[in-house]
C-alpha cells in the first residue's frame, strides 16, 4: 500500500517556503525522500530512521514522527532549482530484506 503524499502539486514564488507531507498506515523502519526532475532519474535527498529524528540539508530538512508514521519535508527560501517531483519512500524491514514503497509524488514548481 502506497504512502499518501500531500499536496499533489504546489506552485511557489522563489524565496517562499513549502511543506510536503507523507503518511503511512504501516510501522516503518525509515522514510526516504527523493527529487526527480523531468526526464531524469530520481535523486536521493535524505533518509530518516525511526526514532523521530530530524535532518537538514542546506535549506531542505525533514522530520519523521514514528508514532504517527508520518514524515514531512520542509523547503525553505525555495530556489528555481527546487522544481521537480518529490517522492517519499517508506521502508519496511522484512527480515531478509527491506522494501521501499513510494508515494505518488508531489509536483513542485518554483517561479520567479
Amino acid at each position, binding site marked *: 500500500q*502506497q504512502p499518501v503524499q500531500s499536496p499533489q502539486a504546489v506552485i511557489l514564488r522563489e524565496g517562499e517556503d513549502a511543506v510536503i507531507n507523507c503518511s503511512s498506515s504501516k510501522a516503518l*523502519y*525509515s522514510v*526516504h525522500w*527523493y527529487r526527480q526532475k523531468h526526464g*531524469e*532519474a*530520481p*535523486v*536521493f535527498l535524505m*533518509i530518516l*530512521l525511526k526514532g523521530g529524528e530530524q535532518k537538514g540539508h542546506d535549506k531542505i530538512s525533514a522530520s519523521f514522527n514514528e508514532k504517527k508514521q508520518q514524515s514531512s519535508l520542509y523547503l525553505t527560501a525555495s530556489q528555481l532549482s527546487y522544481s521537480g517531483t518529490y*517522492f517519499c*519512500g517508506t*521502508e519496511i*524491514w*522484512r527480515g*531478509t*530484506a*527491506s*522494501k*521501499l*514503497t*513510494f*508515494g*505518488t*509524488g508531489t509536483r513542485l514548481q518554483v517561479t520567479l
Partner: protein
Amino acid sequence: DVKVTQSSRYLVKRTGEKVFLECVQDMDHENMFWYRQDPGLGLRLIYFSYDVKMKEKGDIPEGYSVSREKKERFSLILESASTNQTSMYLCASSLGVGNEQFFGPGTRLTVL
C-alpha cells in the same frame, strides 16, 4: 560515484514478444530493484533482489519475472509483452536496509 546503468533508454516491442531489460551496478550493492513509473502513480515496485539468485515480489509482479545470476546484474523479463506494460522502467540498487537507493537512467518501453 555509484553507477547504475540500464541496457536501453528507449525500446519498442510488439505485443507477445519476450522482452529483456538489463541493469548493472558497479558498487557491489546487495540489493537491487525494478520499478515502473506511470503518470500519477509514482514508482511502483515490481521485484527486488537481496542476494544473488534471491528475489522477492514487489507490489505489481504480475506479467514480469526477474533473474539475478551475478551480484552486479539484475534482469527484468516480460514473458509476453502487452500494451499495458508500456511504461518507464527504473532500476535501482542499495547497500541494504536504511540506505539510499541509486537509480539508473530508466528505459522507456513502448509495446505496440
